[in-house]
């Protein structure tokens, strides 16, 4: 219900532009350090395991064929999930805590009494900012992650030209794009769950704590489950 109402309000005035811009900064810019770190180490470890796999099962010299696998795995699966989970922990929980505190201190009622629809004032700008910033963070994470995988392989002596040629030959734009589609959906899921839990918080500080915990648990599980079904639903390739 909250999702339906929020999506309808996307196209209705008045827009809370100031809050929307604040949320873009909060969700996007302030998540950059944590996304950089997780994407870099995600890429490095993916590069490491792929290198080990090729080296052990195919044979020395075959590691350069790991490039497309690393890039595909990162852009389609690992980076969208990592970004989704990181933003859930950092932003989803803070949305639940902030809105939950507003709810129990009657600030949500005050919004209503002063002519501001709490959905348009609180939920819409957060959801809109989240659905815009999640793909941006994912694209940024893709670059960092792929660079991490590449770096590990280069350090291990893999031929950089063969690595890149294989990567560019087999990685499709759709692979990156399908990861971004997932990120848009994860963005909506995180914001809606954070706001929903905040708006239904009751019972003082304990209630706010519960809302925060529930947001992290529900959103994280939803992301992992949705990711599987999205991977099944989205075509593996557009190349035919």
């Amino acid at each position: 219900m909250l999702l339906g109402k929020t999506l309808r309000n996307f196209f209705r005035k008045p827009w809370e532009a100031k809050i929307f811009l604040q949320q873009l900064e909060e969700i996007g810019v302030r998540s950059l350090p944590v996304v950089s770190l997780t994407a870099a180490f995600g890429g490095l470890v993916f590069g490491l395991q792929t290198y080990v796999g090729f080296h052990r099962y195919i044979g020395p010299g075959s590691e350069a064929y790991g490039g497309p696998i690393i890039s595909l795995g990162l852009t389609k699966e690992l980076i969208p999930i990592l970004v989704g989970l990181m933003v859930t922990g950092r932003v989803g929980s803070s949305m639940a805590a902030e809105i939950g505190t507003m709810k129990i201190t009657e600030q949500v009622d005050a919004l209503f009494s002063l002519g501001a629809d709490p959905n348009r004032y609180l939920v819409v700008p957060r959801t809109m900012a989240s659905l815009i910033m999640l793909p941006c963070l994912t694209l940024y994470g893709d670059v960092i992650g792929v660079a991490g995988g590449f770096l590990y392989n280069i350090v291990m002596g893999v031929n950089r030209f063969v690595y890149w040629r294989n990567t560019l030959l087999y990685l499709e734009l759709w692979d990156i794009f399908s990861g971004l589609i997932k990120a848009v959906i994860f963005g909506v899921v995180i914001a809606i769950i954070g706001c929903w839990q905040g708006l239904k918080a009751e019972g003082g500080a304990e209630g706010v704590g519960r809302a925060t915990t529930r947001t992290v648990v529900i959103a994280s599980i939803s992301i992992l489950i949705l990711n599987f079904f999205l991977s099944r639903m989205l075509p593996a390739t557009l190349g035919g």
Partner: protein
Amino acid sequence: MIKIVDLHVSFGNNRVLRGVNLTVDKGETVVVIGQSGSGKSVLIKHIMGLLKPEKGEIYVGGVEICCLGEEAFFHLRRRFGMLFQGAALFDSLTVEQNVGFGLERYTEFSSGKIKETVKESLAMVGLRGIENLMPHELSGGMKKRVGLARAIAYGPEIILYDEPSTGIDPIRADAINDLIIRMKKDLEVTSVVITHDMVSAYKIADRIAMLYEGRIIEEGTPQEIKNSKNEIVQQFIHGKAQGPITEW
């Protein structure tokens, strides 16, 4: 102006209101008294439309509010101002932005006019030069007065006060009482006030209604309430621990 007919409200198994009937005429100040937890705040939140009744009707200006569409409800809320029990100031906004919040949404005022009106509203509650402070920099009493300034800033016809004098020193509390009386005399504002402060109730009320066990058990002028034969009313207005009310 406001008519509440057979209002029933429950939260789970807790039946908070069990058939409240109350009428408030235009320009009248009605004070609702009752024990903590007796449902007074729930009552005014229903008048404001913040909560939906389980059963019963609420009329404002002859219109039943529960069935109004979004647009009509927005225009109805424009007629109300509400002072919340804990002031409910927006933490992330300055005092000026808090007081100007309703003005921005309910009026076509320019930003200069909004600033001017905010200053005037703050001056009416005895506050000056605090426009740029954040709510966490204010004392409890100051927050309450900023909340009151916010409620009256856009000139509502009906003001709902949830314990306006709680947390304020007696002199300031009396100044708030005078402000409520002035709003009624000068602007013909209709007021519903919830309070435990009987000194304040006697001073500002045209009528006092006592809420007990989910119903209005006594209603009348301050003098009629003082002379009430109802032992529950007498125990409450004199603040005695001994009497028919045994649950505290």
